[in-house]
């Protein structure tokens, strides 16, 4: 079987050349600090534990992948031994046959899954893939039979010999020679991505690694304009995309038919690296309302533009909810890419749509989003006479009010929180006029300059006072202070108000009461759940007051965004539906009378849904009602 030997040898050589050819395009990106050795040593854990946990959320796919990937990897190595190096061993041959059967069975699952093809899966090369897997498995199964002593050896130019050669040529072309270029490139780029991951610390981390990294504002070019402005390992990450469409299924913007599909976004970014790039070959769901095939790009051409790879409406449809990042089995960082692109639009072009420029201008001029005087942040609490930390100097809990203090709806939440803290006799204080906006909104909109200015000034204020921990009712503030302020020197213990309330309830610091709210479903804020992993505390509070709690189909770490994140309410990109309407429909399906929320943005977005609908009540309000009934 010299012919088969030659074929395998050539395919391995061509495969290596194609891998180098493919890797070349990643190095069009900017340099990045990558600890290659650390990544390599951790690879088995990253792959078999971290990545597998994500894949296993879809058990069918996980089993399918274990069979195909495990079967193929083992079969390929054994093929090299048995057929390329011609090691004459019955045991090896039998082992090879077993793995090929496993792979073939997996290929059947691959084919079955696509019949009929779910909308989230891509066609194109992926339609061919199950047959290529079969071809590989079948070819080497036939070729191995004589080596296992099951049939007599057959000549190369006999019928079975030619069948073996043709199938092996097909299978090896897809699975070995052109692996780095076709649908199988996800295996090669994906492995490299796990080793060189741009957020390496997220692998195996106890809670999500979600904070954005500060941008050096002294750089000559701020943010990402063209593909070559991404770091090289980000470009590698885009190339790892296997087009499974899990991101597409969970994306709130896609669900409301805003012009965003995270899968196509990553595909467009991966394609944009090539000179003369176009999205014409993309064979998945399009951006809702936008045709495929009209986008063009290149390594140094702007990515964002009316006829560029990505339309500005697509970029600004994202609510930065991280649902795509949470679901992605290849661990691609969609939101980082979005923010990098937004940074260029905001800082270098000033091209931020809708009312966002107005909000950003007010942030710069008044340090609040709504342009109110800082002194008016406490207007709602005139009757509560909140203690100022400037008068006390130190306290146990520093209550961070946030932009919600200017909003009638959220003043009710803050009022409930203050009354609960007084019930529990907590020594707390507020910053009053000294509290500036955290700059979270500016940062999600790409205006890193305004964010850093606010962050530095807030950090300086916090450094003046002594307190044990910061508590806030706004998950966006919580995330910002907890995960993004340490880079500016503000290292404090930060708690979301539901975490504090859970602590108070479990310590018995509050009178035990029973809630009179009916059936209640809890809506997880993205910035509390997915960004910070806190999905337990709010539920514990609800359970403690005897609420009949039901879960929506999407909850916890896989909850769906209300549409209020990432500055989406101010950039206001139109879709066929509104994201809060989609989410409220999911709440209605549970039959709940109350949607419990824990975020001012969620409260406002969900209350904006026209009725009849469940009532929208903050966890603090529900708890206060129960405590006062006790």
């Amino acid at each position, binding site marked *: 079987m010299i012919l088969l030997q030659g074929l395998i040898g050539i395919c391995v050589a061509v495969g290596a050349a194609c891998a180098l050819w493919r890797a070349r395009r990643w190095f069009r990106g900017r340099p990045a600090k990558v600890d290659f050795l650390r990544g390599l040593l951790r690879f088995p854990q990253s792959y078999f534990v971290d990545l597998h946990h994500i894949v296993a959320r879809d058990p069918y796919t996980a089993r399918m992948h274990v069979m195909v990937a495990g079967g193929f990897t083992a079969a390929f190595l054994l093929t090299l031994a048995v057929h390329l190096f011609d090691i004459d061993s019955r045991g090896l041959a039998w082992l090879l046959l077993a793995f090929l059967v496993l792979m073939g069975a997996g290929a059947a699952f691959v084919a079955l899954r696509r019949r009929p093809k779910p909308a989230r899966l891509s066609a194109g090369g992926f339609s061919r893939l199950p047959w290529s897997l079969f071809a590989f498995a079948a070819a080497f199964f036939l070729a191995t039979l004589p080596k296992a002593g099951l049939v007599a050896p057959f000549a190369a130019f006999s019928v079975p010999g030619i069948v073996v050669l043709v199938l092996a040529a097909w299978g090896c072309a897809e699975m070995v020679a052109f692996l780095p270029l076709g649908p199988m490139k996800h295996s090669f780029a994906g492995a490299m991505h796990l080793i060189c991951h741009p957020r390496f610390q997220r692998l195996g981390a106890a809670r999500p690694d979600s904070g954005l990294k500060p941008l050096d504002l002294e750089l000559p070019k701020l943010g990402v304009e063209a593909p070559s402005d991404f770091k090289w390992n980000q470009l590698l990450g885009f190339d790892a995309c296997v087009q499974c469409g899990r991101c597409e299924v969970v994306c709130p913007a896609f669900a409301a038919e805003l012009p965003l599909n995270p899968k196509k976004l990553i595909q467009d970014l991966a394609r944009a690296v090539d000179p003369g790039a176009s999205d014409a070959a993309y064979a998945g769901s399009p951006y809702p309302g936008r045709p495929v095939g009209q986008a063009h790009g290149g390594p140094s051409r702007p990515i964002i533009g009316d006829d560029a790879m990505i339309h500005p409406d697509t970029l600004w449809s994202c609510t930065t909810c991280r649902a795509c990042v949470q679901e992605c089995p290849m661990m691609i960082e969609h939101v980082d890419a979005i923010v990098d692109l937004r940074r260029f639009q905001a800082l270098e072009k000033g091209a*931020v749509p809708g009312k966002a*420029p107005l909000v950003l*201008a007010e942030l710069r001029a*008044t340090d609040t989003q709504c342009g109110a005087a800082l002194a008016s942040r406490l207007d709602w609490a005139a009757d509560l006479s909140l203690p100022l930390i400037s008068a006390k100097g130190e306290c146990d809990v520093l209550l961070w009010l946030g932009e919600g203090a200017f909003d009638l709806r959220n003043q009710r939440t803050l009022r409930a929180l203050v009354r609960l803290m007084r019930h529990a006799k907590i020594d707390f204080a507020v910053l009053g006029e000294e509290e500036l906006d955290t700059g979270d909104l500016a940062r999600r909109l790409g*205006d890193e300059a305004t964010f850093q200015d606010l962050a530095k000034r807030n950090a300086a204020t916090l450094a003046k006072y002594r307190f044990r921990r910061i508590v806030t009712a706004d998950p966006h503030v919580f995330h910002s202070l907890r995960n993004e302020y340490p880079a500016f020197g503000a290292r404090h213990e930060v708690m979301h108000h539901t975490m504090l309330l859970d602590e108070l309830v479990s310590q018995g610091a509050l009178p035990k009461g029973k809630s009179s709210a009916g059936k209640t479903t809890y809506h997880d804020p993205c910035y509390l759940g997915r960004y910070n992993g806190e999905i337990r505390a709010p539920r514990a509070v609800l359970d403690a007051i005897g609420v009949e709690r039901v879960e929506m189909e999407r909850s916890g770490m896989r909850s769906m965004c209300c549409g209020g994140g990432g500055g989406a309410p101010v950039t206001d990109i139109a879709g066929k539906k509104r994201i809060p309407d989609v989410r409220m429909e999911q709440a209605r399906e549970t039959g709940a009378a109350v949607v419990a929320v824990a975020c001012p943005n969620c409260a406002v977005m969900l209350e904006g849904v026209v009725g009849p609908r469940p009532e929208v009540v903050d966890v603090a309000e529900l708890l206060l009602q129960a405590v006062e009934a006790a």
Partner: protein
Amino acid sequence: MAIDVVVLVSIGRHPVSGRARRADADARAVELALGIAGAHVQLVHAGDPDEPALRDYLGMGANAVTVLRMGPEADPVSVLSAHLSSTKPQIVLAGTRAEGGEDSGLVPYLVAQALNTPLVPGIVSLSLVGERAEMLQGLPRGRRRSLVSPVPLVATVPVMAPAPRMSAFGLARRGTIAVKDADAAADAARTAWTEGPARRRPKRIKVMKAASAADRVRAVTEMAAGKGKVLQNVPPEEAAKAIFDYLVTEGIIQAKP
């Protein structure tokens, strides 16, 4: 041939925080200028070149701002007029009024007078057709008036003009500030004044004697539709008399007995 457009920009003040910023009307003038096809836009400011808020204008995409350096007490009119009569731009734009200082809105008029060019107040769009400027003047309640004027001209841009683009940090940082020392005379009249916070003026209460909701709607819409009358092609004396009589009936001035 590129047409030279100069925008006079001033330092504004945010109404709530009092922080220095780009003046709203001036920013709209810059926005309008940047939208004129074939225009070469230059920004000119008379005042302190080290004021950071000047960079807000650069962030809109103008490459440079020329600062005629003068003290805070100096009168910008002569400085601006002298600069503009030497550079001779075809179009000079400015916001209708500043956000600080006298706020009289007279600077563009005085500059136009010094340059001996027409002044077109309150324009919301401008395009060039040959040697003439075609403009839309913004009038109350969304009405627009089409105007044509030969260049050179001075025009003012009101806050009803299209919103200015966002000021981009990177552009603001890269833009250059060219400083020219100006020989400014002190504003003698102003030195005698004292500045204080504005006093809220009492509002006239509209008394509605409406019996039904329909009446109230009518009262509001009739008010909005305006009660004035349009005088056209009347002798100046008659026009002045009509304005005078109106001011008397509104109680703004008192007629001498």
